[in-house]
C-alpha cells in the first residue's frame, strides 16, 4: 500500500473516489432497503394477523393491514396474566443465567484453544467439534438428566444443557484469533502477566464484537427454546415462555385430534390468530432489546487504542 507507485496514482483518483463511494453507497442503500422490505413483509402480516378475527383469517386469508380488528388472540394468551408473567420471569431468568455462565465458559474455552503455546489445543478443539457430529440421540441424553442426575422438574435441567455449543466455541476461537494479535499477548507475558490477567485485561476489551455476537446467539437460543421445558418441567411454574405459548396451541390441536379416540371436551381457541400473536408476544421484547446489542455491530473498534 505504501510504495511509491500507489502513491503516484492515488492523487488524480481523489475526485473519482468520492464518485465511486457515492455510487457504492447508493447501491448499498438500495439493496438494503430491498432486503429489509422482503424480510419485514411477512412480519407485518403476522402482526396485523394477530389483531385480526380468527374466522376472517381462515376465510379471507392474510393481509398487510388488520381486518375485523380484535384483541381476541391476545386476550386468549393473557387469559391468566399471572401465568404468562411467571413464564416471562422464568424466561428472563434462564436467559440471563444461561447466557452469563455460557458466555464465560465459551470465552474461556475459546481463549485456551487459541493459545499457540498450549500443546493440546488441537486435541481439545477436535473433542469439542466431535460432539457436533456424533451424538447418542435424545433418549440417553434424557436419561442422563432425568435418571442419572435426577434433575427432572429442576430448573437446572432447563438452562444447563444449552450453556455451550461446539459452534459457538469454535466461533469464539476465531474471534479471539482475529482480534488479539500474538505479539500483544507475548509482550504481556514477558511483562509477567498470567493467563487470567491476559484474558481479562487484554483479550476481553478487544473482543467486544465477538462477545456480543456469541452472547446474542446464546441469548436468542435461550429465549426461543421450549424443548427443555417440554422434556423436564413437571410444574408449569418453571415453564419457558415459548413453551407456555407453544403448549397452548399444541393442546388445542392435539385435543381436537384426540377427540377421535376419546370422548372429551376440546378447548376452543382462535388458533390462527393466537399462533401469530404468540410470535409477537415472544419476539417483541427481543426486538426492544436488540438495539442495545447492536451498538457493538455498528461502530468499529480500534485495537491501537488498547495497544497504547
Amino acid at each position, binding site marked *: 500500500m505504501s510504495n511509491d507507485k500507489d502513491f503516484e496514482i492515488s492523487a488524480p483518483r481523489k475526485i473519482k473516489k468520492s464518485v465511486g463511494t457515492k455510487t457504492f453507497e447508493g447501491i448499498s442503500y438500495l439493496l438494503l432497503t430491498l432486503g429489509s422490505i422482503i424480510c419485514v413483509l411477512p412480519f407485518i402480516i403476522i402482526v396485523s394477523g394477530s389483531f385480526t378475527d380468527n374466522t376472517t383469517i381462515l376465510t379471507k386469508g392474510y393481509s398487510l393491514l388488520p381486518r375485523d380488528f380484535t384483541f381476541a388472540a391476545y386476550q386468549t394468551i393473557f387469559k391468566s396474566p399471572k401465568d404468562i408473567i411467571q413464564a416471562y420471569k422464568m424466561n428472563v431468568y434462564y436467559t440471563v443465567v444461561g447466557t452469563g455462565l455460557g458466555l464465560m465458559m465459551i470465552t474461556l474455552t475459546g481463549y485456551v484453544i487459541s493459545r499457540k503455546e498450549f500443546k493440546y489445543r488441537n486435541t481439545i478443539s477436535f473433542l469439542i467439534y466431535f460432539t457436533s457430529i456424533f451424538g447418542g440421540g435424545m433418549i440417553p441424553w434424557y436419561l442422563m438428566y432425568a435418571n442419572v442426575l435426577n434433575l427432572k422438574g429442576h430448573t437446572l435441567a432447563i438452562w444447563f444443557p444449552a450453556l455451550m455449543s461446539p459452534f459457538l466455541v469454535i466461533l469464539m476461537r476465531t474471534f479471539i484469533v482475529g482480534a488479539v494479535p500474538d505479539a500483544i499477548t507475548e509482550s504481556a507475558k514477558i511483562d509477567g502477566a498470567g493467563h487470567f490477567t491476559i484474558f481479562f485485561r487484554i483479550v476481553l476489551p478487544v473482543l467486544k464484537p465477538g462477545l456480543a455476537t456469541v452472547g446474542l446467539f446464546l441469548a436468542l437460543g435461550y429465549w426461543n427454546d421450549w424443548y427443555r421445558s417440554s422434556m423436564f418441567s413437571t410444574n408449569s411454574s418453571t415453564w419457558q415462555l415459548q413453551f407456555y405459548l407453544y403448549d397452548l396451541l399444541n*393442546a388445542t390441536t392435539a385435543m381436537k385430534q384426540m377427540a377421535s379416540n*376419546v370422548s372429551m371436551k376440546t378447548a376452543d381457541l382462535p388458533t390462527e390468530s393466537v399462533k401469530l400473536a404468540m410470535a409477537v408476544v415472544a419476539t417483541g421484547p427481543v426486538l426492544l432489546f436488540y438495539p442495545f446489542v447492536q451498538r457493538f455491530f455498528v461502530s468499529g473498534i480500534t485495537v491501537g487504542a488498547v495497544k497504547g
Partner: protein
Amino acid sequence: MKKKLLSAVMTLALLASVVGCGSGSQSAAGALDQQGVSEIPATEATTETAETTEEAAPAAAIDLSEQVDLVFYVMGDAPQDEELVEEALNEKLLEKCNATVDMQFSTWTDFQQKYANEITSQGADLIYIANWLNYGQLASSGAFEELDDMLDTVAPELKALVGDSALGMCKVGGKIYAIPNTWPEYVSNGVKYREDLRAKYDLPVPDSLENLEAYLMGIKENEPNQPLLAVTTEESQGFKTAFDAAWALNFKYSWVNINGLDYGLTANYDTPTDVYDYWFSDDFVEDMKLMKKWADAGFWSKSALSDTNNSDAYKNGLCVAEIAGQNPNKQVTAIADFTNAGEGWESAYVAYGETNGVIYPGHATQNGTAVVRGCKNPERALYVIQTLLCDDEVNAILQYGIKGTHYDVVDGIYKNLQEEAGETPTFPYEGFNTWNMRNGDTKLPQATDVALQEMFDKYAKLGEKTKFPNVNIYDGFSENYEAYSAERSAVGNVMRQYLAPLQAGLVDDVDAAVEDFRTRVKDAGLDKCREEYTKQWVAYCEEYDYK
C-alpha cells in the same frame, strides 16, 4: 540388522500362530455333541419371571402398613387447581390405602415421545394407556407389570367391576397388563355435514357414496364459491389409507375395521379371518377413478396434499362436510360450535356403520391404566387403581374435583360452578384427563352428554344386529413387525409417495398410476409384510374366536 529383526519377528509370529491355532475353536453344537449332550436344561432362563410370581403369591391380603407414594402419569395439561384436588384426593387415599398419588402430566407437546420416555426411565408407577398410545406393542415389549395374579389377590372388587370379558380384551400374549375403564362409548366414524344447506337445496342425506357426491355437487351448483371438503393427509398416516378422501369409501364396504386392515389387505366384519387383497383388486381401480372424478369436480383443493391445517375448517364454514376421523363426540362439539357462531348453521352426522351395517363400541384398551414395570410396589399400585375406580367418593374427587367448589350435581347432571359463573374453570370436568378412570356406573353426565347418549343408544341397537354383537374386533390386535420392520417402513414410504396422490385424484392416468403404485409397493417388500401380518391377524381372531 534389519534382516535379523525381520526374521526374529517372523519366528515369533509363527510360534504364536502355532500356539493360537492349536487351540482353534470349534462349533459349540459340535462340542456339545462330543460331550454327548443333546438337550440343554432350560431352568435358569426363566428366573426373573419366577421371582416376580413368587413375590405376588404370598400377598393373600394386602399389607397396608407402610405408606407408599405413587406417581400417576396422565396425558395432557394440568388443571389450575391440581394441588388442591390432589390434596383432597390424597387425604382419602391415605385413609383408604395408606398411599398418595402425585399426578404428572405429559402436556400435549411431543406427548408421544415423552410418554415413551416416561416408561423407559421408569419415572411413573401408574400410567394412562390407550391403543392409540401403542398399548399392545408396549405391553408385549414388557413395559408394564403383569396383573393376572395380583388381580385375584389384591383387587377382587376391581376384577368383578371390570368383568372378565373387558379384562380379556386387555390381554397381550395371554397376560393382563391394564385395567380398562368401564364406560362404554362409541367412537364409530362417519360423516359430519351441514344439515341447513342440505335442507335449503333439498339434497339427499350423504349416507352413501352416491348421495355424498350428489350432496356435494348440489352445493357446488348452488354456491360455486363454497369450498366443499377439507381433506388432508392428517388422518391417514398409518398403513390403511394415505389421503383423507379415501375414508368416504367406508360407505361401500362392510370391513372389519374402518379403512380395512393394513397393507391394502382387508376382511369383512362377518368373516374376519378371510383376509383378501384390496390394492390389487378391480374395486381399488374403480375407487381411485371415483377419487379422481371427485378431485376433478373440485371437491377439495388441488394443493390439499400439503395442507395440514383443517381442524377449524368445518367450524368456520370452509367446508360443508368432514369425512375423516369424525365420531359422535366431534359431532357434539360441532353442534356447540355452530350454536356459538350463531350463523344459523346446523350440523348433522351419519355413521358409516349405519350404511354398511358394521358398528361397534370402543375397545377396552381405548382408555386404561397400567402399572409401569419397575414400580416398587405393584400390588399397592393396583390396590390404588381399585380404589380410584371403584370407590365412589375417591372417584368423584379424581374426576370432578371438590364438590361445592368446582362442581355440583343438579338433577343427576354435572354442573361446573365456575363455568356457570362465567369464570375459567380451575378444575374442569375430568380435569386430570383420567378418562381411564371412568366408572360406567357412577359417571356423572354433562349437559352435552345427552345428545351423545342418544347417539350411543342408537348405535348400540344397530350393534346388536351384527354378527359379533357390540364387539370391537380390530382394536385389540397389535401387530408385531419386528421381523419385517424394514419392509414395513418402505411400504409406508411408498404409500406416502404414490398412494396419496392416487387417493387425492391428482394423477392424470389412474390405470397407469395404479400400476406404478402396485409395482413400487411390491418392490418395497409388500408380500413379506402381508404374509406375516395375515398370520398374526388370523391367529388373533382364532384366539378370541372371531370366526
